[in-house]
């Protein structure tokens, strides 16, 4: 099969789908032109991710990666959420096909973008180096797909 059982589970029964109204942080990455956009909403309480929701336009592995990423950061301190890697997401899903690995990259980026949004909104200082810059992610509206 193309996807592991884990991927299929998170794809067909995605956890944390939806929107948080008045979220404390929102991150959106990807590009409709390229076929995937992920949006992550965070509710933060005392530097802890009290709630997380996502919306995804994309393929099965994009939806599964979003679902898995939200599960992995829910209830965790922001500092821990920032250590989430695409590799960890892919591994937690029991692997992704090679040409789908970029979906796990998107999930990592969406989490980081949401945290950054929270920091920015609240004037919290942070190390800019932890956040991927737009050029490297390659998902800007003007850029090429992946």
């Amino acid at each position, binding site marked *: 099969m193309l996807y592991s059982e884990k991927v299929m589970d998170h*794809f067909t029964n995605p956890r944390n789908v939806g929107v948080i109204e008045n979220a404390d942080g929102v991150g959106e990455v990807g590009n*409709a*032109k390229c076929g995937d956009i992920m949006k992550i909403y965070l509710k933060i309480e005392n530097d802890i991710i009290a709630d997380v929701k996502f*919306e995804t*336009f994309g*393929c099965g592995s994009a939806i599964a990666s979003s679902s898995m990423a939200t599960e992995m950061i829910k209830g965790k301190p922001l500092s821990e959420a920032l250590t989430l890697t695409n590799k960890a997401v892919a591994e937690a899903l029991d692997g992704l096909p090679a*040409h789908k690995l970029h979906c796990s990259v998107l999930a990592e980026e969406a989490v980081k973008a949401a945290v950054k949004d929270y920091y920015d909104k609240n004037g919290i200082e942070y190390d800019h180096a932890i956040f991927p810059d737009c050029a490297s992610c390659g998902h800007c509206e003007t850029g090429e*797909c*992946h």
Partner: protein
Amino acid sequence: MNIYADNAATTKMSKAAIEAMLPYFDQIYGNPSSLHSTGQYAAEALFMARKIIAEILGCDAREITFTSGGSEADNQAIVSAASIGAKKGKKHIISSAIEHHAVLHTLEKLKKQGFEITLLDAHENGIVRPEELAAAIRPDTALVTIMYANNEIGSIQPIAELGKICREKGVIFHTDAVQAVGHVKINVVEDNIDMLSLSAHKFHGPKGIGVLYAKKGIPLTNLIEGGAQERGKRAGTENLPAIMGMAAALKEAVSDIDENTAKLIPLRDRLIEGLLQIPHTVLNGDPKLRLPGNANVCFEGIEGESLLLLLDSKGICASSGSACTSDSLDPSHVLLAIGRPHEVAHGSLRLSLSEENTIEEIDYMIEAIKEVVAYLRNMSPVWRDLQEGKRSYVIQ
């Protein structure tokens, strides 16, 4: 429910085709090049199959070359015509923007060898305009290759007209008829076709076998050198079981063509109508000039692969021009060529029916697709933006 609606990808073999193959596995298994009777029985069967297929296409048995499928036939047709042209200093080829990769990639290879390629526009309905072909033909045009019917959007080209223009201008005309043979009526004489490719697995025949028809007087260039099979133009021990299966499948498909068409068109149109009830959905390809079994739409705000997987979990086998269904990252070149923007092309769905599908299946599919599209839109940030007016709809 288990509904197979991906007949443009490949078909289930028919009973007749399977039965036609079986004796050639372990009974009449000889090599048709062998002199002994086991070989000569095989040679006779090969001869008969060639004759059956030639009669159906309206050509001579000597104009039939068996290949390993549609891709090989397309490659050999184009390479052969290019080689004939090159000898006369003609290095211009005309094709269309919506051809199969077997054609387009062969043309790219020729481009590297100094050929100039003109791709005709297929316009929004996926159909090439004869007057645009006439205008594109130059004194150095070696070949025109336009597919009979498109594999994604099902649009059927005005082949006889295109062929007539080529004939008048003395240009070789090839058509990739892989999606058309067995599904629409084809006669190489009436349709003014010089070369034609077909593949058995698209009409309930076996995989790995196809035909290149080349009109008498058009010398073929070998892709595969070796033995003297196929008049020296295609080496390799003949795949007789598959050839017998192909002949049987083609015979059956062609003799049932009126009946199948009469059954399929209402099913197809009911399906298309049902799908178009979903808001912000558009039909791809011409509503009338399309294969009897082909329905292809784009849904705004969702992506095709996730749609396919959810339909699969509801027992529906379908296909999409989404980039995610291939190793490439761009969505279908066909959908882009007919003017669908990338984000819309990602949300396409192709359902390709066979005469085995029923009206109950059509209705089940419409309902299932409605549900799944709503479900995916509900989790799509793109759809939210569209609904909230932050993006504007491409499909009204």
